[in-house]
């Protein structure tokens, strides 16, 4: 296989290159003009993706080449599913990518499907997402694709885009996680080996197929090459989605969003199921999966929220955990009962509890962790546990019955109400 070289690879932003240059949504001709036509690929693309060291941008950061190889080894004709239905309320990166560069995602789907010998590919977005008509229009512009692409809208729930939930929805119409194994790569949509990849991951495949693994590795770190689409929000001057090389430090990422707009005490990294880091610890931390894991966190979907120092971290954590409890799929007992119990403990702590509330909360965090079919309870536990560490001094005064004044200060972080009146179909 040869790499198409007639179009110069982008320098600086890769996935958002068109947007950075023109501030316009790329239609098919703009897309082809920038990146060139779809390169011819075969099964060797799997080896290229592996050599590039691409890892999944949906939050797990699993090596994409290994996942492709596992799907290819399944024996039956696979199906490709592009996950563009990010459930993180404060993350906007998948939405932004699909809005400004839909053809990069569609290219990635076609290329992955071709490499796997798949005939069907499904692009999933949230039901009612205003970008759906534009994505439809982009799909209609493409006439020569060798793969049939279908757009599917799924319930806009937090765990509905977890990969087993996504496959369950496509198979049965119910977007709740299932017990694994089997994982989708073994037995997914219609029982076939199914590649479920985040849209940002697939867009990167479209670039690797064109410019090769060495070009891809020119940005990022050895273990985590390439760029990441980070959603930077909270107390920054210019919140939004930024494309940054993996390994960018938290302070540089905040700087890329205009810097902090007021004194910041802590940042929330990864997602609502991520963890708090004290600003002093976070500033020089490189944004890679390994660096986040080393501090007990997760890079997740690359979300970075700056919490103003005058806001109470206990109150903020309580709001988020209450939301996550409402978004439980209500299937596994420890998640169904545990998260709402943990949220209630946090609420009591927030308004000034007694020391035994804190003891009970700590106990419950230990009991609930790792006991769901999916990682939803683990994310809520991680967030709450990190709050007890990062806001330790504050937690102590709350537990002694003296809640801080910060509980009445709005953080600017939007946390929806979870679960009320929403279904799974």
């Amino acid at each position, binding site marked *: 296989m040869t790499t198409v070289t007639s179009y110069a690879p982008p320098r600086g932003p890769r996935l958002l290159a068109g947007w950075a240059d023109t501030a316009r949504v790329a239609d098919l001709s703009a897309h082809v003009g920038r990146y060139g036509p779809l390169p011819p690929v075969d099964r060797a693309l799997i080896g290229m993706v592996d050599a590039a060291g691409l890892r999944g941008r949906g939050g797990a950061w699993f090596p994409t080449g290994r996942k492709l190889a596992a799907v290819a080894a399944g024996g039956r004709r696979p199906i490709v599913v592009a996950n563009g239905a990010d459930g993180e309320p404060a993350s906007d990166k998948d939405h932004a990518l699909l809005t400004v560069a839909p053809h990069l995602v569609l290219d990635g789907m076609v290329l992955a499907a071709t490499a796997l010998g798949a005939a069907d590919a499904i692009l999933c977005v949230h039901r009612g997402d205003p970008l759906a008509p534009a994505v439809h229009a982009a799909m209609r512009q493409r006439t020569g694709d060798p793969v049939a692409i279908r757009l599917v809208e799924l319930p806009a729930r937090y765990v509905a885009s977890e990969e087993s939930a996504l496959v369950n929805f496509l198979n049965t119409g119910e977007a709740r996680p299932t*017990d694994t194994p089997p994982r989708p790569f073994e037995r997914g949509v219609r029982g076939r080996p199914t590649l479920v990849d985040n849209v940002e991951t697939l867009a990167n495949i479209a670039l690797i197929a064109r410019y090769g693994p060495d070009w891809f590795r020119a940005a990022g770190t050895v273990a985590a090459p390439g760029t990441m689409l980070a959603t930077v929000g909270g107390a920054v001057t210019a919140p939004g989605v930024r494309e940054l090389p993996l390994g960018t430090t938290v302070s540089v990422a905040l700087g890329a969003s205009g810097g902090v707009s007021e004194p910041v005490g802590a940042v929330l990294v990864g997602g609502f199921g991520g963890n708090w880091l004290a600003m002093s610890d976070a500033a020089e931390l490189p944004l890679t999966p390994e660096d986040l894991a080393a501090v007990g966190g997760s890079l997740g979907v690359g979300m970075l929220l700056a919490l103003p120092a005058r806001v109470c971290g206990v109150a903020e954590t309580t709001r988020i955990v209450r939301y996550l409890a409402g978004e439980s799929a209500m299937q596994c007992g*420890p998640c169904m009962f545990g998260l709402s119990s943990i949220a209630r403990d946090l609420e009591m702590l927030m308004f000034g509890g007694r020391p035994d509330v804190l003891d009970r909360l700590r106990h419950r965090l230990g009991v609930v962790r790792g006991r769901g079919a999916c990682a939803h309870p683990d994310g809520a536990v991680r967030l709450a546990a990190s709050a007890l560490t990062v806001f330790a001094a504050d937690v102590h005064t709350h537990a002694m019955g003296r809640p801080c004044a910060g509980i009445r200060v709005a953080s600017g972080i939007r946390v929806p109400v979870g679960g009320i009146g929403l279904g799974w179909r």
Partner: protein
Amino acid sequence: MRLRLNPIACHAHGLCAELLPELVDLDEWGYPILADGGHVPSALVDQAKAAVAACPTLALRLVKPA
């Protein structure tokens, strides 16, 4: 051998903890917590089989270690 719990199928009947208290504890909501990642010492295999057979929702299985 190893015990594997399907947490979605489990509805907290609690028979497993009744029949296999050496390896199964119940949380405050009645759901089982498996000791030692579900590892079953050979002396308890028969008891584990009884617990698996008693589960009304077939949520508990005995599997060979991966």
